[in-house]
């Protein structure tokens, strides 16, 4: 009914599109006015082998090797993957597991580079200043080679989106400058300071996907960024189809599908990508990085990181080389003692809590926060029973029913959880934020998703095992039959034969006769 009214109002032009739900958290944009500062080069840089969504990379260098800034040091394995580059010149000192920003606390194989201070760049990639005359597929390969992944936090390999597909012509390119997470201001400052570069990047994206219209989306709490972008847009040539749109501030507006809905009124169907409805969406930081990769021939080796939090003396926006330990950033901003401090990787709504600050900055590090124990405690107080107030369903941007979903996850009723579309949850945290009972709803959803994934893996493995086992049984039965047949033949002819043959059969057929053994190797992974 309210949805109907809203649609009606929209059709009559009374109301702009807007995703349903959402919250208005305290934004704490402490560092909104601080200009981006360069932090220089840390003595040792730690580069984990996977900084994107997809399959991990494998190292190309070994201990002792000299590397240059921008040199590819790990190659991608598989399609959904991008390589890792050295973020300064120096020597590889070790390759071993190191802590990363992952809730499990498990490590990731990482390459440690000792900086030599010269910061010599690998200049093998030539700048493509005349990119307008370069074939989009070449530019796409450039985006992949330069290790670009979504810098908004999701780190989805960028090149995958930048494609021209005749079935899905891209009508609109959306530049995501929403930055709806509290505290974070890295995109905000980038737009204020590098508006022109970002527009160049946007022009490259539009060229790559063959679209002529674009929208730069900014929330109304970043008026200066919107102004800067508008100003740059007015002076730029050939960007007529692009407009700046200022949206009312609401979390999680920056979430891709929600943003697309707010701007175009169209929903990306579940399980589909924005390109399937003719839209692509890129974060401003990624767009700037794409411009550097194309126009300067520079792989992704640095990013802007907001260092903030209520327990940090000097919040700031920093330009940081990938691999720089987070601890050194906090130290630079005046925080040395981490007792009674909770460190968050990312924003407070979707970021991971870190067990310690000895974790390198990676491609997904949009910010890192030092929150006081009190601030954390108020978000993680003791869970009370759900009183079904329904606030969670009101704020859910995916129109789920979080409290019922949490019940199902808690009681391991995963069939029901899936029926209630658990996998459409974007884990934005709005539900937990408003819950008067302090129920860690997102935690329950993550548990449920993990268990379902585990169940699916187990089931796939069991199915493959069953096929292998049945294949084996069948083969043994055939051999048995063959043996019996031979034996009866032997009995008829009274001429004994050596029985070694079936033995060897077994061995070779162990791999040959089992279709499942070779047919479905990826099912298990």
């Amino acid at each position, binding site marked *: 009914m309210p949805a109907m009214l809203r649609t009606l109002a929209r059709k009559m032009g009374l109301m702009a599109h807007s995703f349903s739900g959402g919250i208005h958290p305290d934004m704490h944009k402490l560092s909104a006015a601080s200009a981006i500062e360069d932090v220089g080069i840390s003595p040792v840089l730690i580069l984990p082998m996977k900084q994107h969504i997809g399959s991990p990379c494998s190292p190309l260098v070994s201990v002792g090797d000299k590397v240059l800034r921008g040199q590819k040091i790990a190659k991608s394995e598989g399609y959904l993957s991008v390589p890792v580059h050295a973020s300064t010149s120096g020597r590889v000192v070790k390759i071993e597991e190191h802590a990363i920003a992952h809730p499990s606390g498990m490590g990731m194989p990482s390459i440690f580079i000792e900086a030599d201070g010269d910061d010599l760049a690998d200049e093998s990639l030539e700048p493509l200043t005349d990119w307008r005359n370069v074939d989009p597929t070449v530019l796409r390969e450039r985006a992949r080679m330069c290790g670009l992944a979504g810098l908004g936090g999701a780190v989805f390999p960028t090149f995958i989106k930048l494609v021209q597909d005749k079935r899905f012509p891209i009508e609109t390119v959306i530049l995501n400058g929403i930055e709806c997470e509290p505290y974070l201001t890295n995109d905000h400052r980038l737009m204020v300071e590098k508006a022109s570069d970002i527009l160049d990047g946007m022009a490259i994206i539009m060229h790559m996907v063959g679209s002529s219209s674009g929208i730069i989306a900014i929330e109304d709490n970043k008026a200066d960024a919107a102004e800067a972008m508008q100003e740059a847009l007015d002076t730029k040539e050939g960007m007529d189809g692009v407009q700046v749109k200022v949206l009312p501030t609401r979390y999680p507006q920056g979430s891709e599908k929600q943003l697309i809905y707010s701007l175009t009124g169209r929903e990306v169907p579940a399980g589909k990508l924005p390109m399937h409805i003719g839209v692509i969406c890129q974060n401003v930081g990624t767009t700037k990085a794409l411009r550097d990769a194309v126009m300067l021939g520079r792989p992704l080796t640095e990013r802007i990181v907001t260092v903030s939090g209520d327990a940090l003396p000097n919040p700031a926006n920093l330009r940081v080389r990938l691999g720089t330990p987070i601890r050194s950033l906090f130290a630079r901003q005046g925080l040395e003692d981490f007792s009674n401090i909770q460190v968050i990787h990312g924003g407070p709504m979707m970021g991971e809590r870190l067990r310690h600050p000895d974790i390198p900055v990676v491609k997904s590090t949009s910010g890192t926060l030092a929150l006081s124990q009190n601030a954390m405690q108020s978000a993680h107080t003791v869970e009370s*029973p759900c009183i079904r107030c329904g606030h969670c369903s009101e704020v859910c941007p995916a129109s789920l029913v979080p409290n019922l979903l949490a*019940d199902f996850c*808690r*009681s391991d*009723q995963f069939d029901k959880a899936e029926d209630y579309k658990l996998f459409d949850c974007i884990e934005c945290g709005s539900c937990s934020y408003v819950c008067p009972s302090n129920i860690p709803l997102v935690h329950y959803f993550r548990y449920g998703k993990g268990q379902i994934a585990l169940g699916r893996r187990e089931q796939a493995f069991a199915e493959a095992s069953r096929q292998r086992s049945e294949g084996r049984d069948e083969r043994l039965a055939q051999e048995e039959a063959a043996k019996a047949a031979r034996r009866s033949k032997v009995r008829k002819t009274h001429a004994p034969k050596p029985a070694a043959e079936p033995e060897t059969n077994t061995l070779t057929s162990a791999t040959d006769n089992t279709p499942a053994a070779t047919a479905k190797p990826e099912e298990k992974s």
Partner: protein
Amino acid sequence: MTEFALILLSAVLVNNYVLTKFLGICPFLGTSSKVETAIGMSFAVMFVMTLASTASWLVQQYVLIPLELQYLQTIFFILIIASLVQLIEMMIHKTSPVLYQALGIFLPLITTNCAVLGVAILNVQQEQTFLTSALYGGGAAIGFALVLILFAGIRERIDVSPVPAAFKGSPLALITAGMMSLAFMGFSGLVKV
């Protein structure tokens, strides 16, 4: 027309077999742990109840009364119900083995479900016509299905609640059924038939 609607309403709500006549409590408690099972059971009972009430009316009118064998009423009715239950059991076993498994013993027990026999006998006692007895049987079955499914929904919710150990399972189910019965008292006097 109004009369038929009132008969139906009366059988479904006002004189609900489970909550106001307290018949058929056994399958009501036994097959209500899951909504899906309850829906399956509801259809089984609807099938048996409607057909049993019409068949027993026919038998009563055209066999028992002409032959003056009314004293065999109960035996005949049970024979009808038992055959119908056998039939539906085979049908469910064929179409939905999982439901068959879930209903378990309660499926054959529809035979001795007092609600089914109750409907058949009450029909005869109330001297209904063929049409009204079919309607009455159908209404009673719908009423049974309604409360069974509602109750199953409630029990699914109770199942994930931290119920005190002493009340887990049947005790709380009975308390809840009692509360439902109280609520259904609100319907009393709604239809004066």
